[in-house]
């Protein structure tokens, strides 16, 4: 399988704190890979490093065959590496529609942007209803939908979702995962960061468990679901 993303021996330091200590992972073309782990395990740091928001101390990141270690975030977006950040980070004082337009900032073809915004509205009709409302007036689940919709307007080839289910009711989580499934079915590769291992492993094809900045388990989603260590730590009895 060809990789869209290959992370090798990644080390990231925050001052004297080692957030990542030689983490390696891959995402294959069309794959949905889940990254599981507790708070502070280094999940968000991993995606932040991939999207160029934090500096990598050592190790390499290769995307679509190109070395993108410490590349500029806007160059990565242009390559189709799109990161939906933890906590959604939608623009609360821009309208829903403007948020989606901002998602297409790096896209130069404005008819492509409009086409994709239309697609987002048909996939997520709630957003269409609220297109003129300010982002900050949406509910948590709608804001997450908006954050994902905004990423879709960028035309992702690799979509990285950081804890999309955080703080949402179970029904909303299921809806978000449906959307992730839709995105995957369009051929987009997905890196899904989750604490909610149960729903993540339902969508993912493969997964990694990380702890203290390194990968501790790598297996198919099916194997992870039955791995006693995963069951005990992340799925509950």
């Amino acid at each position: 399988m060809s990789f869209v993303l290959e992370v090798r021996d990644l080390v990231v330091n925050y001052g004297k704190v080692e957030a990542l200590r030689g983490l390696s992972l891959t995402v294959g073309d069309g794959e949905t890979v889940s990254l599981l782990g507790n708070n502070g395990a280094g999940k968000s740091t991993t995606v932040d490093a991939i999207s160029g928001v934090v500096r990598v101390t050592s190790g390499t990141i290769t995307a679509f065959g190109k070395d993108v270690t410490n590349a500029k975030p806007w160059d990565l977006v242009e390559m189709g590496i799109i990161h939906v950040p933890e906590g959604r980070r939608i623009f609360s004082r821009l309208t829903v529609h403007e948020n989606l337009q901002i998602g297409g900032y790096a896209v130069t073809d404005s008819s492509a942007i409009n086409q994709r915004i239309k697609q987002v509205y048909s996939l997520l009709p709630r957003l269409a209803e609220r297109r003129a409302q300010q982002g900050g007036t949406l509910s948590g689940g709608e804001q997450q939908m908006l954050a994902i919709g905004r990423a879709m307007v960028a035309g992702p080839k690799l979509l990285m979702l950081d804890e999309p289910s955080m703080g949402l009711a179970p029904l909303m989580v299921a809806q978000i995962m449906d959307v992730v499934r839709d995105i995957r079915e369009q051929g987009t590769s997905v890196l899904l960061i989750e604490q909610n291992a149960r729903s993540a492993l339902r969508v993912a094809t493969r997964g990694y468990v990380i702890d203290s900045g390194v990968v501790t388990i790598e297996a198919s989603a099916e194997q992870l679901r039955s791995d006693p260590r995963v069951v005990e730590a992340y799925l509950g009895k």
Partner: protein
Amino acid sequence: MDLEYLLQLILNGLFVGSFYGLVALGYSMVYGIIKLLNFAHGDIYMLGAFSGYTLLTIGAGVIGGQASIIVLVVIMLIAMVLTGTIGLILERVAYRPLRSAPRLSVLITAVGASFALEYGIAVSFGPNPRVYPVGLGNESFTIFGARLTYAQLAMMLIAVALMVGLDQIVRRTRSGRAMRAISQDPKACLLMGINVDSVISRTFFVGSALAGAAGVMSGAYYGKIDFLMGFIIGLKAFTAAVIGGIGNLRGAVLGAIVLGLLESFGTAWLGSEWRDVFAFGFLILFLTVRPTGLLGERVTERV
């Protein structure tokens, strides 16, 4: 007080307010996008006046002593490009290296930049006031008994055109959307593929260009310029931005009009020597009573 006098005071206030507005916009834009009070902004206005002076001196042989409004507009546009570029360089050299420094450090740098620009001009042009090589005509007309010169009317129209143009850019264009997005969450903007540094540069360019336009108009209207002329108007623009709600562009214009009117009426009642006392008294009043200004956002952010 008779109605004509009242109208005259309102017109005077609007005229002064339109100057303040052009400068206040740059103040507010920069504050909105990087939360910096750019105390060198008034000096960009001064540089605009000096750019216009230099251009007019060079061109005086060609155009003669009485400049038409068209010539002045062309000079103003060139001066806008110059001051815009200076503002952009200022951000690159003085503010960008301090992007992640504490805000107080950047503020002190801004004060330093202000002095550097002022005394740089004092050295190159001399400390004495310079007289603008062209004057504007004094022909005036009356509306309902109040007097307004054609030059004043033209300058107000130019100011309004620039303000409306900026408003449209910020509200409707891709760059404007990016500016508004950065003012809310610069880190998320990186993830949208926005080159945040280049949008900040553009913001400085536009804000400085507007201040430069005001500088040229002020030189042509009042006839005299000096290296400290930006100091007071910088503080007035800051006051206007605070009154309107700093970071809010329509607020900056509203604040400028309010301040212009307050000054106009205040000086009519108290005498013109009280003008600045009156204006800065209002700054203090607003900062204590309503620090978010007339149109400012409430600072409750959802976490």
